[in-house]
C-alpha cells in the first residue's frame, strides 16, 4: 500500500510553485552573463532586473536597494560583518564599533556570527523573550546605549512562528542612532512586510521559504545605510555582492514573490483556519500537550506543540513512517546535547522541550491533510508514551 505523503515542514523549505517552475524552465536557456554588453548578456540582465523590480515592489523598496545573494544566511552574515570591518575604505563611523544587540531566538546564522564578532572584540547583548517568544521592548530600551551600533531582531521565528513588533523596535533604535536589521526570511511572503513602514535599514529575504528555488535570497539595504560587501571582487549588484548573478534562481525568486502578491492574503486566512482546526483536534484527542508560540502574533501556518513524556525525534520518525513530514527541536534530532535554544528561551522546562515538534503548513496543505494528521498523531503519541519512563497518564 502506498503511504500517503503529507509535507508539513514548510518553514524548513517549500515545494516550487508551479508558476515558478514554469518561469524557470523558460529561462533555462538564457545563459548569457548579465554583465555582458551583447544581446545574450542583455537578455539575462533584463530578467534579473525585472525580478529585482518585483522583489523591491513586494516589500516597498526601491530596486537599487535590493541585493541578490546566495541565501538568507549569507545576507545575515553580510549585515553583521559590517560591524567588525576594519578596512580603511569602510564607513569610518562604524569602525571599532563596540556593541551589537540581538536576541536569544535568532537563527544560528545570526547567533554563530555574533559569537564570532564577539571574539573579534565586539560586545554582543542578547534580548530575552517571554513564554510566547515575544521580546519586551522595555528591555531593549534599557539595553541600548551610545555604544550600540546595530540591533538585529528576527521578524518571525522559524520554530515557533512568533512575530515581533519590528516597527516599534526600529524606531527606538534609530532614536539612539544605531542601525536596525531584521531577518525576515520567515515573514516575507507570509505576512505583509513594508520596509518603509517598518523603518529598517536592512532586511533579509529568502526564496525557498516561499515556493521559490533554493540558493537565492536578497538583502534590502536602505539608501544611505553603510554597507561593506561580504563577497568582494566584482562589480555585480553595484559592488555590494561579487559573483555572476544566479539568473535562474533570481527569475524563480521574482516569480515566487509575484505569486505571493496574489496568493498571500487568501492563503493566510485559509492557513489560520487549518491551524485552528489542527490545534483544536490535538487538544481534544491528546492529553498533556503544550503549545509554544504567540496565540495571535504568529505565522499563519506554524504550530509548535510539545507532548509530555514523548521524545521529539521518535515522534518525528514515527510520523515519517506514516508519511507525515514535520520537524523537531529535540536534541536527539540534531546530535547536540541541548534541545532547541528557541524553545528553551521561552522558559519551557527541559523535559517538555525535548518533546516538541513543529508543524508548518503551506499552500499545498488541505483540510484532508489536517484530518490525516489528527488520525495518526494521537496513535503515535500514545504508542511512545506507552514505552515512556516518564509519562504517567493523568
Amino acid at each position, binding site marked *: 500500500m502506498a503511504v500517503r505523503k503529507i509535507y508539513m515542514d514548510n518553514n524548513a523549505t517549500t515545494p516550487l510553485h508551479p508558476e515558478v517552475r514554469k518561469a524557470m524552465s523558460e529561462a533555462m536557456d538564457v545563459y548569457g552573463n548579465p554583465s555582458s554588453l551583447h544581446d545574450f548578456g542583455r537578455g539575462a540582465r533584463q530578467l534579473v532586473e525585472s525580478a529585482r523590480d518585483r522583489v523591491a515592489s513586494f516589500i516597498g523598496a526601491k530596486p537599487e536597494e535590493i541585493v541578490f545573494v546566495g541565501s538568507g544566511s549569507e545576507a545575515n552574515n553580510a549585515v553583521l560583518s559590517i560591524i567588525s570591518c576594519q578596512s580603511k575604505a569602510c564607513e569610518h563611523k562604524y569602525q571599532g564599533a563596540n556593541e551589537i544587540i540581538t536576541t536569544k531566538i535568532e537563527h544560528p546564522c545570526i547567533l554563530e556570527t555574533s559569537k564570532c564578532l564577539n571574539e573579534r572584540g565586539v560586545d554582543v547583548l542578547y534580548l530575552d523573550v517571554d513564554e510566547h517568544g515575544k521580546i519586551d521592548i522595555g528591555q531593549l530600551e534599557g539595553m541600548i546605549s551610545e555604544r550600540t551600533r546595530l540591533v538585529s531582531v528576527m521578524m518571525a521565528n522559524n520554530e515557533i512562528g512568533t512575530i515581533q513588533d519590528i516597527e516599534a523596535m526600529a524606531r527606538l533604535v534609530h532614536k539612539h542612532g544605531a542601525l536596525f536589521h531584521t531577518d525576515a526570511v520567515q515573514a516575507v511572503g507570509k505576512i505583509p512586510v513594508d520596509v518603509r513602514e517598518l523603518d529598517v535599514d536592512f532586511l533579509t529575504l529568502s526564496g525557498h521559504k516561499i515556493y521559490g528555488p533554493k540558493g537565492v535570497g536578497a538583502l534590502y539595504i536602505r539608501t544611505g545605510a553603510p554597507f561593506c560587501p561580504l563577497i568582494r571582487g566584482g562589480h555585480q549588484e553595484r559592488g555590494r555582492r561579487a559573483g555572476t548573478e544566479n539568473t535562474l534562481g533570481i527569475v524563480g525568486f521574482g516569480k515566487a514573490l509575484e505569486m505571493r502578491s496574489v496568493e498571500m492574503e487568501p492563503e493566510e486566512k485559509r492557513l489560520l483556519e487549518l491551524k485552528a482546526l489542527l490545534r483544536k483536534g490535538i487538544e481534544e484527542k491528546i492529553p498533556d500537550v503544550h503549545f509554544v508560540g504567540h496565540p495571535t502574533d504568529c505565522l499563519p501556518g506554524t504550530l509548535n506543540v510539545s507532548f509530555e513524556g514523548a521524545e521529539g525525534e521518535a515522534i518525528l*520518525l514515527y510520523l515519517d513512517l506514516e508519511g507525515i513530514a514535520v520537524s523537531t527541536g529535540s536534541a*536527539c534530532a540534531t546530535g547536540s546535547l541541548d*534541545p532547541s535554544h528557541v524553545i528553551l528561551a521561552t522558559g519551557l522546562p527541559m523535559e517538555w522541550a525535548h518533546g516538541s515538534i513543529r508543524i508548518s503548513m503551506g499552500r499545498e496543505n488541505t483540510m484532508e491533510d489536517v484530518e490525516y494528521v489528527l488520525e495518526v498523531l494521537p496513535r503515535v503519541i500514545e504508542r511512545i508514551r506507552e514505552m515512556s519512563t516518564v509519562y504517567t497518564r493523568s
Partner: protein
Amino acid sequence: MAGPEWAYTEKVKEHFMNPKNILVNEDEYEHDGKGVTGNVKCGDEMMVVIKVDAERGVITDCKWKTFGCASAIASTSVMSEMVKGMKLDDAYNLSAKEINKELGGLPDHKIHCSVLGDKALRLAINDYYRRHGMEEKVRQEEARVVCQCMGVTDQDIEHAVLEGARTFYELQEMTKIGTGCGGCKEEARELLEEYKEKHFCEA
C-alpha cells in the same frame, strides 16, 4: 515506490517500528533486578528490568522502557533480545559496540543515544546481586580522576567522546582537561584513543 534511504539501517527501522520486550505494566511485572539511567532533562532516560534463573545465573527475560529517540529504542530493543539466555557475567560485559553491530550500525552522532540500554542493564544486574545477597559480585563503575587540576574523570572523557570529541583539542574544549598544570595530557590522549576505539572503530 521505495523512498530515499533512512539514515538508519533496515534493522534499526524494524526494531524502531516494532520494539521488542517493552515493559507495559510495570506494577504487574515481577522482576529480579532493575536499572534506571539517564535523565529526562538531558533528553533521554532508560529503565531495564530482568528476570534471572538463580540456579544457572542466566537472564531469562528482559524488559525496558525509555524516554528516548529512535536509536535508543532500536538499540535497547535488540539488546533485550540478545541478553535472553545469557549468563549474567556475559550480559554485564555486553558492549554498546556489540549491540550496534547487531543493529547493522548507527550514524556516529547517534551512538551516544544508544549506550543507555546496556548501561541500564548493568545497573539491573548489580541490583539483582544486591537484592539476592551477592554484594561481593556487584561491580562498581567508579570514575577515576585523570586531570587533578580541572577535576576531569575517565568517565567524563568517555562521555565527551560519545558526544563527538575526536581530537585532543575537541576534548579540551568540552572538558577543559589538561588546561591546568598539563601533567595529565599524555594519559588523556591515550584514554581518548581508547574510547574512540571502544565506541567507534569497526569491531
